[in-house]
């Protein structure tokens, strides 16, 4: 039995980090959110520019993502900053409180000055940060882990070294009762038949094919070809020639397990096992969706070297080739390039990834955490009104 030491939450979930965060509901408050976080060292600002004058599809997605982030098992306490009479902060906080989360909202409005709001926020955060330091970890089984699978800055080695190794890990953790989420719908284009064939039933199969088709349609509707943005310039210099080729390599991260479920952006899996989340191939937005859906850790393969992370979840970088590891070791946690120049097998790197996941779950800091890579952006579905 594989275990790790985590932070148990009131609602039963378990975190691998114990963060206190402050988060804005509308872009206008991003500056004040950062200002407030700076007043209490140790508090992480989660800032974005969404939330204002959005159509309902976007405001729903924003609220879902923010609630998923604040109610995440890696988060010990979350303070929302909102403004105006129709702000969603109070509603989100009320829902999260029912689930036992430590959350609070401050609404900037006419009745209070900015300084009063900041003072109230500072006091709440200091108190919660102190409380988080008192919390003890407890032993938990890996079946309680949800691992997001992502790639960014892929090259021709991605589908040969890092992604199949992540696939080996994914199959192992699924066999151990845990959950892995593959994402990036655009990077299933051209390889969708392979995953569809692994669906647990016809419904999941159809749903999966539908989200892939819809993404292609989105591009065609505006007269564009999805294959013009993907592969990116860097993918091409890395040796990838077509989207199909990139996709075939991308889905290797999902190993060979049965596809249990297809979930929407920022939604949580309802079953354990291997699942797919409908996200863009844009890595940062995809990671934000995976984490908001409950992934405590994200595995991220990279061939060109991408430093990005998440404000609340450790992101483990898996380098695809030896040259990358030689040039940019500071951004790489696992070197899958050893398959190329040191006779390691895909299975061995898969095992190394599993060990790394457990070490990180136990508190080991990843490269993206070390360099404060806290990128956060929500996938948009419409123009701002």
């Amino acid at each position, binding site marked *: 039995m594989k275990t790790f030491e985590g932070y148990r939450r009131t609602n039963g979930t378990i975190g691998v980090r114990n963060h206190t965060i402050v988060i804005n509901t509308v*872009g*206008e*408050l*991003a*500056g*004040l959110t950062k*200002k407030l976080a700076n007043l209490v060292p140790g508090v992480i600002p989660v800032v*974005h*520019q969404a939330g*204002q*004058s959005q*159509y309902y*599809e976007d405001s729903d997605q924003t609220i879902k993502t923010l609630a998923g982030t604040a109610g995440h098992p890696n988060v010990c306490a979350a303070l929302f900053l909102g*403004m105006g009479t129709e702000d969603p902060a109070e509603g989100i906080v009320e829902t999260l409180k029912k689930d036992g989360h430590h959350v609070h909202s401050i609404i900037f409005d*006419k009745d209070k*000055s*900015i*300084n009063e709001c900041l003072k109230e926020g500072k006091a709440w955060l200091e108190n919660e940060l102190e409380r988080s330091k008192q919390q003890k970890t407890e032993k938990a089984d890996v079946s309680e882990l949800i691992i997001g699978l992502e790639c*960014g*800055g892929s090259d021709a080695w991605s589908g040969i070294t890092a992604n199949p190794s992540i696939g080996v890990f994914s199959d192992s953790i699924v066999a151990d009762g845990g959950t892995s989420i593959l994402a990036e719908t*655009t990077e299933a284009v051209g390889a969708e038949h392979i995953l569809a064939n692994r669906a647990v039933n016809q419904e999941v199969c159809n749903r999966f094919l539908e989200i892939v088709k*819809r*993404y292609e*349609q*989105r*591009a*065609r*509707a*505006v007269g*564009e*070809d999805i294959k013009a*943005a993907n592969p*990116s*310039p*860097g993918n091409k*210099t*890395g040796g990838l020639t077509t989207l199909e080729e990139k996709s075939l390599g991308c889905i290797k991260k999902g190993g060979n397990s049965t596809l249990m479920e297809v979930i929407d952006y920022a939604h949580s899996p309802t079953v354990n096992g291997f699942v797919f989340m409908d996200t*863009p*191939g*844009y*890595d*940062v937005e995809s990671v934000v969706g995976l984490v908001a859906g409950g992934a405590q850790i994200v595995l991220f393969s990279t061939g*060109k*070297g*991408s*430093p*990005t992370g998440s404000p609340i979840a450790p992101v483990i970088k898996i380098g695809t080739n030896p040259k990358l590891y030689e*040039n*940019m*070791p*500071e*951004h790489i946690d696992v070197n899958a390039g050893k398959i190329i120049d040191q006779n390691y097998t895909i299975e061995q790197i898969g095992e190394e990834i599993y060990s790394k996941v457990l070490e990180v779950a136990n508190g080991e800091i990843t490269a993206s955490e070390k*360099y404060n890579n*806290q*990128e956060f952006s929500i996938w*948009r579905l*419409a*123009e*701002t*009104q």
Partner: protein
Amino acid sequence: MNYSFKGYKRDDGMAGTRNYVGIVSSVICSSAVVREISDKVSGTIPIVHANGCAQLGDDFKLTRDMLIGMSSNPNIHSALLVGLGCETNQVSGLLKRIPKTKPIKGIGIQQLYGGTNTIQKGISIAETWTKEATEQKRIPLPLSRLMVGILNVDADQDSLIKTGPVIGEVVDRLVENDAKVVMGLSKTLEPAGHLLSERIVDTTEREKIINSSKGLQRLRWKDPATVAKDTEFTEEELKLAALESKMTGSVPIKGILDYGEIPKEIGFHMMNISSNVVESLSKMASSGCNVVLIVSNRGVLTGSIALPCLTVAPQRDENSFDELIDYTIKGRNVDEESDRMIEELLEVCSGKQTQLEVLELGEFSIPHLGTTY
């Protein structure tokens, strides 16, 4: 009256009201590195955003053009572009398109083998430029070197009655003195398109504004199968828009700017904007504005990262966020109010900090016109 202000003269005919070294990320992936460089070198501003990769068509072009516009903004003394390397929005592509009227350089994390090297390199370039920037002195300049953005935020009928005529007079006077003025055409003003069209000479431009008054037209792409319908404006919206249109003064309207378009002519322009304050201020900055008047009865909680934003509010019993207001319209006669407001504006252009600058509140954001991939 002969107006002037003290600014930093630029080679492209404009003037800086501020003199920042801009550290610009080409993609979200280099934003942490950009922040780090900017934190270490005072006199710089971090121009970071959430876009730059997995984008197509107009959505990508808007991101690219806004970053070109920001780097070219007259308040930016010099611009250091920082990329990752593998992104859609390549630094080389930006460098090719930015007019060469100021120091511009590009560096990339992958080319320099990691964030640590990139930060070091960035700091050394930024330090050289901030030194040059501090040595530059403000000199008296005419208003023809100013481009004033005007953004109306969340106004109700009561405040529009107070602010409309005064802002309108300010617009007329600025234009008479050869300044460029750019007023935001947001969904609250769009219903007045017909009214405003009478002041537009160019037929194509006139069509654009008449078209926008037909109803709210914005792109939606979640479900490509359903076609988004325009929402017609209500009577109430039409009424408020007519009041808001008073802010545009009486000068001719040269045209409607879109997608980070930079106005070439002196005079009064309108700009398509959204109701998102940060997006709108960012569009104004990318189009070359060097100062903004924010008109709001509530006080806006952020400004632009690169432009001084002077907040104007009508006098009210309960003034929200007093600490954000730079100028209160007290109901004196229109001439007197606009005199004082322009005086305040020119002081800000000459270096006086706005309340938002004192509080160090400034953001940048690029809107989306399509899904990321």
